[in-house]
């Protein structure tokens, strides 16, 4: 197995979750790398839709922000901000969305708004952006996050983007059109979500990782899948394709 950083590992594992022909809503950074990697390898017909309205982009570099002209020059289409959220996201045309955040709980609820009290914040984070909209409308949510105790919490300080809220029953009551959280990919393992309860469940441990390590970094009593797998290690092909995407190591440090 090639020597990879934990970010590289997470991106490679995330890329494998994308299927050929799916549409993916991409932001800048790590999710952009995962989508591009999948496209280079097993999903050549992956459709990438950027939050800023660009579709079918051919960027000549890693975009500096979501409004980067490199996402527009040579793209198939671009539309306004409201149009992007209305026609594509609310339109139900996006299969997969990537989210991250400062905190996540066992139902995949994500906080990217505030640490501490909303009115008197300890740390004010950037906020939802499109995250809550993505969480509510795409078929599958994939979360990429380092596996740290301060990130995996019993209860998020602020629920920015709904996972299954208090479980799949509650999700159904909300009548959101999205499919909810699908996978959480960390540097230790891949979680999926229980079909019945909607609780985060360890589906696969990355090579060399033990359940004890996962438990140490997750504050609740972690559920484990009956058919717990081991994540196949990154291949040379995956690693070299990924590194070619970010030659300056902007995101892959």
């Amino acid at each position, binding site marked *: 197995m090639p020597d990879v950083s934990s970010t590289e590992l997470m991106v490679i594992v995330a890329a494998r979750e994308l299927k050929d022909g799916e549409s993916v809503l991409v932001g*800048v*950074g790590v999710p952009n790398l995962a989508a591009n990697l999948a496209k280079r390898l097993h999903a050549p017909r992956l459709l990438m839709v950027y*939050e*800023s*309205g*660009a579709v079918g982009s051919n960027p000549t570099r890693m*975009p*500096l*922000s*979501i*409004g*980067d*002209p490199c*996402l*527009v*020059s*040579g793209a198939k289409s*671009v*539309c*306004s*901000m*409201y149009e992007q*959220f*209305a026609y594509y*996201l*609310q339109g139900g045309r996006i299969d997969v969305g990537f989210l991250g955040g400062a905190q996540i709980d066992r139902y995949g609820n994500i906080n990217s*708004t505030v640490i501490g009290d*909303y009115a008197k*914040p*300890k*740390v*004010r984070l*950037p*906020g*939802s*952006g*499109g*995250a*809550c*909209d993505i969480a*509510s*409308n795409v078929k599958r949510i994939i979360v990429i996050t380092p596996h740290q105790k301060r990130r995996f919490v019993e209860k998020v300080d*602020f*629920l*920015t*983007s*709904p996972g299954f*809220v208090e479980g799949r029953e*509650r*999700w159904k009551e*909300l*009548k*959101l*059109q999205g499919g909810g959280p699908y996978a959480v990919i960390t540097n230790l393992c891949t979680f999926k979500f229980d079909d019945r309860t909607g609780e985060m469940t360890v589906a696969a441990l990355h090579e060399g990782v033990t359940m004890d390590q996962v438990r140490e970094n997750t504050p609740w009593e972690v559920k484990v899948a009956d058919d717990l797998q081991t994540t196949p290690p990154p291949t040379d092909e995956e690693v070299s394709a990924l590194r070619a995407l970010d030659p300056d190591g902007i995101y892959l440090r």
Partner: protein
Amino acid sequence: MEAGKLMSMKEAVAKHVRDGDTAYLSGFTHMIPFAAGHEIIRQRRKDLVLARATPDIIYDQMIAAGCARKIIFSYAGNPGVGSLRCFRRAHEKGVPAPLEIEEYTHFGLSGRLFAGATNMPFLPMRTNLGSDLPPMNPLMKTVVDPYTGDTTSVVPPLRPDVAVVHVQKADVNGNSHIWGIIGEQKDAAFAAKRVIFSAEEIVDESVIRSDPNRTLVPDFLVHAVVHEPWCSHPSYVQGYYDRDNEFYVEWDKITKEHEATLGYLEEWVFGVADRREYMEKLPAGTMERLKPTPALSVPVDYGSV
């Protein structure tokens, strides 16, 4: 409103931006009107309500300068870099002054602007439910969908007092062509009571009229037209210049302390008279470095009968 719309940014801000205004300086991380923001700071506007989905560095600067009493936003970050430290300092610690917040998702805020632009009574949308955002914001309400009986989230229209929109080409009356990531530019112009357009180039009306499908906003909505090349530096303008990315990274360091931030404003905002002086003050070769290679669109034929 027709005659004499062409003016300097100084005149446009003096005439159309007032203390206490709700101001929408548009741009979804692209074509951010930095020159307008700097002029608002120079003219020491105060008590502004700054609205924009993505406040970006320019709102961070305006907050540090003490122009703002409140911010309406959906993502307060330094795009591609990290935090907006001045926004945080004001909101978390009240430095230089307390900053009230009113917060949405991207869809919610761009929807409020769309509803304002099209004068909808309210806008139903498939988001917000289940999130903690609605409980924090009394303007986010629900109605019962009369077709399904489902609870539906709604937001009200947003009508800024003044909008600033930067574009690539405009004629002297404010007909303009915009391309690239067009974000909320159209909705900002239609939603606001007063509208300032600035342009990289002032072109003859015939250039606009050669391609009316590209015009997002016709002139009668525009109150001031400013010829302001490099208006958006250090942000980018499709086809004209790239982002000066080092500055975006540098801003994160400058703003670690409020004093250093004021030092930046003193030198780069108060220390120059206008955008031209600002550009002249930048290191030699900056403009050349940021110029992209031309890539022209294939023309279309409108025909004439």
